[in-house]
């Protein structure tokens, strides 16, 4: 017989309590002066012999009750032949959870950590005997059974496991344990065990994991979880951190910085070469020194190639865990962005014309060669049919839209279109609030401020927003020096304010409309409105806002994905029904992709990416764009759980009992830890019966009711 909670056996000391109470109660007897004692004595001698026997029996029963309860709490189990005698059949249903996440690819002295874990899993499977049945589940952020059912042939498991290699996915312990429990629901053996074999990398574990586990975990009785960590030796791991996506519109021939960061977890300073590659060619190389346990940064200047998606990577010389030594990125390079400019018929010429400065900002030399190609149309007559092709719409005075075009504009936005709306003219306030904004958002233009002598300064209220993320401090200071005269204030709690007035209220706010987004600017851009039109920052501000919206409209989805995710891109033209949509991954294989034409623009969904690298979407061999897939950052941490800490995190609130498999030899450790058939309920039943007997006997021994 073994005990799952042997520490509770100390509770057997509690068996002394009835003995103690027995003797204490004997000592506490009072003296009663009783004159006719001579009549009591002969009767007493006869009765007391029998009574003393009963009292001893009562004491014995009470001791046995305590012993039974303590033994039941210690969770006794029977093993071997005794377990068979216990009834209900023999055998154990074992689920081995084998970690095949990315971190298992790390190399150790005799191979990879996964090789070691695989050997452990095979050893555990070999401990199966008699009626035992075993299932192996490979887990990362998904769980995959090696066989669809439990098997009883360890050799079969060993042969199949020999073919398995670790993937590049992240780790999800909650899902793995849930799937193992679900698999055990089919088990037919009386004993149930889960063996969790892995490196216990602290991956994706944060404060939400425990909450998630408590939310999903069921009350499970009589299932033991044994933890078998296979990687405890620390080693220095260098990592290229993900390259931040370039969110502002990039233009052919421009030079930008690729900002790379290298981290390492070792205790020594590491010097390592760092390479920048673009489309398979090394275009930059440097040496980088990383301090102990820290990180170092480097900026590679890169002149953007021709328009289209440019895929590349920043990589290190591979170390013992090579998977995180290269970080892939994609740059969406454009030559020119068409901008649909919608204006009213009542636009004034001269200093009051808001378009005068806006068009200059979008196309400074008015030669149509700039980054943006503005096409001005009257709001009352713009081409509704071609609107969905526009990556961004710039709106100024839309009072003449009419119901049909207003509906078309709303539809365009909800399907993922974007608009930059300048609504600082006091004459358009009513229309903007009551017709435009009321259909899209709760945001409204507040009262108009147009005093001749009152100026308001602008402040950047979202410095982390892609529009301002790489804004130099001097440029920001220049922008915040601008003084405005004609403007509205907007509620700062609605949408995402990008700019605010120094005196309070939002000046420019980004709102989401369906899948699209609109940036509402509540200030006038004409020459009479203040200094903004003449500010050196006006042109960059308009370009940044338009560029951001254009990127958000075209590249609605970030071009960066993690292994295990399904990469997606958008395509503007899906008119060719016979076109064959495919994606080419790092393994050069061409796989079909799904076209989702229900959105505008349509989307292509690639298969789940199983390895890091660049994935290129194609239509009949013609490139449509690329995405970058990287290993989850959590897989690079190279920190391991203390298994007992892991058990503490997952154990509460469930009937699962976690234990760490100790010992060098797996088979011995398993046999030592393996519990037999649980028999605690026997002791509980025995305690119940003894309690009934005790009650009956105590009643006979207790004081009789007064006559």
């Amino acid at each position: 017989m073994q005990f799952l909670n042997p520490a509770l056996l100390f509770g057997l000391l509690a068996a002394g309590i009835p003995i103690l109470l027995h003797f204490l109660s004997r000592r506490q007897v009072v003296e009663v002066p009783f004159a006719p004692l001579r009549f009591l004595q002969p009767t007493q001698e006869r009765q007391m012999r029998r009574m003393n026997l009963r009292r001893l029996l009562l004491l014995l029963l009470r001791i046995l009750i305590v012993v039974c309860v303590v033994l039941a709490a210690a969770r006794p189990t029977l093993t071997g032949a005794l377990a068979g005698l216990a009834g209900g059949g023999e055998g154990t249903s074992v689920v081995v959870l084998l970690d095949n996440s990315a971190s298992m690819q790390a190399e150790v002295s005799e191979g990879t950590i996964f090789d070691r874990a695989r050997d452990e899993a095979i050893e555990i499977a070999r401990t199966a005997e008699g009626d035992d049945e075993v299932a192996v589940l490979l887990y990362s952020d998904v769980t995959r059974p090696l066989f669809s059912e439990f098997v009883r042939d360890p050799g079969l498991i060993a042969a199949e496991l020999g073919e398995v290699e670790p993937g590049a996915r992240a780790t999800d312990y909650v899902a793995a344990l849930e799937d193992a429990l679900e698999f055990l629901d089919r088990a037919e053996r009386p004993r149930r065990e889960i063996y969790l074999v892995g490196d216990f990398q602290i991956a994706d574990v944060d404060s939400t994991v425990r909450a998630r586990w408590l939310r999903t975990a069921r009350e499970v009785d009589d299932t033991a979880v044994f933890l078998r960590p296979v990687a405890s030796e620390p080693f220095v791991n260098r990592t290229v951190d993900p390259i931040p996506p370039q969110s502002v519109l990039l233009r052919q021939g421009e030079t930008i910085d690729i900002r790379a960061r290298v981290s390492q977890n070792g205790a020594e300073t590491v010097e390592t070469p760092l390479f920048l590659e673009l489309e398979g060619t090394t275009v930059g190389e440097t040496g980088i020194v990383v301090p102990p346990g820290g990180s170092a940064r480097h900026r590679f200047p890169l002149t953007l190639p021709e328009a289209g998606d440019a895929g590349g990577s920043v990589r290190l010389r591979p170390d013992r865990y090579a998977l995180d030594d290269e970080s892939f990125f994609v740059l969406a390079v454009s030559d020119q962005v068409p901008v649909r400019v919608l204006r009213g018929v009542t636009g004034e010429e001269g200093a009051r014309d808001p378009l005068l400065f806006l068009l200059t900002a979008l196309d400074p030399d008015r030669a149509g060669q700039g980054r943006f190609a503005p096409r001005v149309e009257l709001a009352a007559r713009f081409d509704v049919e071609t609107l969905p092709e526009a990556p961004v719409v710039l709106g100024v005075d839309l009072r003449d839209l009419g119901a049909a075009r207003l509906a078309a504009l709303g539809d365009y936005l909800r399907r993922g279109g974007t608009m930059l709306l300048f609504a600082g003219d006091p004459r358009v306030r009513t229309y903007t609030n009551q017709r435009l904004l009321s259909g899209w958002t709760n945001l409204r233009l507040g009262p108009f401020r147009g005093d001749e002598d009152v100026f308001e300064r602008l402040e950047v209220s979202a410095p982390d927003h892609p529009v301002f993320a790489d804004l130099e401090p001097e440029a920001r200071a220049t922008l915040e020096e601008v003084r405005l005269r004609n403007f509205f204030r907007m509620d700062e709690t609605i949408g995402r304010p990008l700019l605010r007035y120094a005196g309070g209220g939002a000046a420019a706010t980004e709102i989401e409309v369906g899948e699209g987004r609109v940036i509402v600017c509540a200030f006038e851009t004409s020459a009479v409105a203040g200094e903004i039109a003449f500010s050196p920052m006006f042109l960059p501000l308009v370009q940044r806002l338009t560029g951001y919206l254009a990127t958000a409209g075209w590249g609605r989805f970030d071009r960066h994905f993690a292994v295990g995710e399904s990469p997606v891109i958008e395509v503007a033209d899906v008119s060719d029904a016979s076109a064959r949509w495919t994606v080419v991954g790092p393994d050069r294989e061409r796989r079909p992709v799904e076209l989702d034409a229900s959105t505008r623009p349509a989307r292509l969904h690639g298969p789940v990416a199983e390895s890091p690298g660049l994935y290129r979407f194609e239509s009949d061999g013609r490139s449509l764009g690329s995405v970058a897939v990287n290993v989850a950052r959590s897989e690079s941490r190279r920190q391991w759980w203390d298994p007992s800490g892991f058990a503490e995190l997952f154990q509460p609130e469930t009937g699962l009992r976690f234990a760490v498999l100790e010992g060098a030899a797996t088979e011995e450790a398993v046999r030592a830890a393996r519990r037999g058939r649980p028999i605690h309920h026997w002791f509980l039943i025995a305690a119940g019966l003894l309690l009934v007997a005790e009650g009956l006997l105590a009643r006979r021994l207790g004081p009789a009711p007064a006559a």
Partner: protein
Amino acid sequence: MAAEADRMLEPEVVSRLGALDFIARTLVEGFLVGLHRSPYHGFSVEFAEYRQYQPGESTQNIDWRVYAKTDRHYVKVFQEETNLQARILLDVSASMDATPEAGRISKLRYGKLLAAALGYLLIKQNDAVALATFDDAPRTMIPPRSSRRQLNHLLTVLHRAEAGEKTDVGRVLDRIAEMVWRRGLIVIISDLIDDPDRVLQGLKHFRHRQHEVLVMHLLDPREIDLEIGREAKFVDPEKTVDPVRTQPWHLRQSYQEAIRGWRGRLARECRQHDIDYVPLSTDTPFEVALLAYLNKRSRLA
């Protein structure tokens, strides 16, 4: 009024009244008031005088012939006999002072109150009364007198009487029987915890000397029923029997049978020898004991 008087005879109430003479007076007067409603109309036969009838008084004793002559209501007052010598023998051994249940009136206290009441009643009837206290030997003896001072003397002795040690009822009764030569009424108040044969022998000795004997066998209620609800160590107040540690509910039935047998034997043998045996417990109203005395007294008259 009568109900209040009845209640005044409850031992627990009476024992709290204070001075013994006051208790005795209260006891007897209360008893006598209650007696007007009882079948005991009077206890003397010799006419003494007439007195005016008071409203509210019983009409039983109105002399209607005098009423016919005088047209007034007169009541006959009888004179008591005075030649009776009563001796009260009170057991003051240690066993009389023990109470199994704290807070209850002890047998000794009950016995003292009963003796005082009887003494008062006897003196009120102009009978001569004597008192003797004893444990394993006679301790105090007051020779018989019928004067009012005798009552004070008697009450003083009772007040001062303290529990002695061991009992030897049989031997003491024998000794007192030897000492008393004039026939009279012997009232024995005792728990009679001694060898029953010797006790009966002592009682018979009184009868042999032509005395009328009234035995008031006094026990604590718990000594009769053993209704004690917890394990206890029972000790003999006179230390003649070894202590017994027991859970009394196991022994209750057999003990009650033993006590019943003992009292039954005493009652039976007393009856055979024309001895009045009155079983009492300390929660028995004094009325019962006093009535028993009056029964005996009336028969003697």
